């Protein structure tokens, strides 16, 4: 009799536990589906302080089921090919009690540019590479189920500064101490992040290493765009500008451009720069002088003079004159001839002066003087009677 009762009791218990297990499974499944479907990720907010950039994603979740959802956690790391940490994301573990509606939490992605070594930052900004993503998430429906997920993979990284080009410098203007020049700057931003910052430019003399120019350019390159800008700078002229009038010169410099984002230099490029200076008085030509009698005491001395303004920037303005020196005395001098020679043009003139006849028969020195905005220069030619 007792055994029969026991068997009946076991039958009832079996039915009860089967029903209970099935009910719990159903409730757990419904609870999980309801929580997952209530999950909302809001608009991210950006916050930067110093070298730290923080991107926060607000999360809203409700729990209409009968079980607490606990130990909800999210974490992620983004590393480069060498295993160096670039960005990390995490949330403090939190719980959503049964019946909670619209519980608010946030997951933050934190990037501290100052903690990333310079060469790694520079490589990230200029080289395509693969980054490694490792993300983990977990939650538990207490006490029946806990879920943990791990996502890992390789993400191709497009550099925000690709195919950087520094164009040929162009001289724009000058004064007595400086040349003003500009250089085109161009690069592509094929990435999904925006490049906003500045490019600081430093030009040093390739021979002496001394700073001869500096400049600054604001950069704003939205994702998947091409940036093109002009970098203007002043180049200090050498002490002796007169030499620049007659001699061509190549300014050999090293240009260093540093990209700064959030005040942190993230990438720098160094490249040699050559700026060619063509002389405004190129290929000067002194023709054979001719002498014709003027009166009984003087003759007219005619000296043909020509040159080409090879400079592409400067219109040479000034005057040219000639004089004859015998011993230490100036015995004849012509009237100054105005000079106005646009870039690429030639200049031809005959310098005429009245010379005492006696001075034509003694050794002397013909002095050609030129006064221009770049300075004064003179050329001395011995004359043997």
């Amino acid at each position: 009799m007792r055994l029969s009762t026991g068997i009946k009791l076991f039958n009832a218990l079996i039915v009860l536990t089967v029903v209970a297990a099935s009910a719990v499974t159903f409730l757990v499944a419904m609870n999980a589906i309801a929580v997952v479907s209530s999950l909302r990720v809001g608009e991210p907010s950006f916050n930067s302080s110093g070298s730290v950039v923080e991107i926060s994603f607000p999360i809203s979740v409700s729990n209409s089921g009968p079980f607490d959802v606990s130990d909800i956690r999210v974490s992620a790391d983004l590393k480069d090919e060498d295993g160096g940490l670039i960005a990390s994301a995490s949330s403090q573990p939190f719980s959503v009690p049964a019946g909670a509606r619209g519980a608010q939490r946030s997951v933050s992605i934190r990037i501290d540019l100052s903690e990333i070594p310079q060469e790694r930052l520079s490589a990230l900004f200029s080289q395509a590479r693969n980054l490694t993503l490792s993300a983990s998430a977990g939650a538990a429906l207490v006490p029946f189920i806990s879920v943990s997920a791990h996502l890992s993979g390789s993400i191709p990284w497009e550099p925000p500064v690709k195919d950087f080009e520094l164009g040929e410098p162009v001289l724009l203007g000058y004064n007595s101490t400086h040349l003003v020049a500009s250089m085109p700057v161009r690069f592509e931003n094929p990435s999904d992040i925006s490049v906003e910052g500045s490019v600081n430019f430093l030009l040093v003399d390739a021979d002496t290493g001394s700073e001869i120019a500096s400049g600054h350019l604001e950069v704003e390159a939205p994702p998947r765009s091409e940036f093109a800008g002009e970098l203007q700078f002043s180049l200090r002229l050498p002490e002796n500008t007169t030499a620049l009038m007659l001699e061509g010169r190549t300014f050999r410099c090293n240009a260093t451009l540093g990209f700064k984002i959030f005040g942190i230099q993230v990438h720098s490029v160094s490249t040699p720069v050559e700026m060619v200076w063509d002389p405004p008085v190129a290929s000067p030509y002194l023709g054979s002088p001719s002498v014709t009698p003027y009166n009984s005491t003087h003759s007219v001395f005619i000296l043909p003079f020509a040159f080409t303004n090879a400079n592409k920037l400067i219109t040479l303005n000034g005057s040219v004159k000639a004089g004859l020196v015998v011993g230490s005395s100036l015995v004849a001098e012509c009237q100054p001839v105005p000079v106005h020679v646009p870039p690429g043009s030639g200049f031809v003139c005959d310098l005429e002066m009245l010379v005492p006849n006696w001075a034509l028969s003694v050794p002397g020195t013909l002095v050609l003087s030129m006064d221009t905005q770049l300075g004064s220069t003179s050329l001395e030619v011995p004359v043997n009677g």
Partner: protein
Amino acid sequence: MVRLIDLDVSGASLAARLALGAILGGLAFLVFYYVPANLLGIASNLAGVEIPPQAAGVISSLIEPALPSVGLALAPAIFLCALFRGTKAYGPLTIALSLIFAAYVFLFFHGGAISVAAPVDQLVGGLPMELSLSIRVDMAMLMALFLVPPALGVAKGVLLMMKMD
């Protein structure tokens, strides 16, 4: 009258036992063997599309290889329990059925924790990256809940054997 081991049953009762055993055994065959053994085909028919090989691999990993075989063993055990109910064999058969069901529950829950690995980049086309996802679902407590009925079944079988003695 027909003698079933130590129990005389009428022809009608035997027919009813056979019919009930066949129905319950058939249902067990369908639920515990056919569905897990043909999960991919059933899912494909329900979804109305061909399941890609990568997703098929993920779905297949949810089913322990031995699960359909154990499910197949449940069908005759249930049939025999229905047939020999009230006989001396019912106790041992109840214990056997409970143990087979316990094994089925254990395999169904993968011992308490299911781990699934999924190549996300192959499952979701067009991703410009290689991503793999691994998910571990710990259901030891739920499995324990489902092991209670077979445990009670074993105890019931012991009581049945004691009663018959």
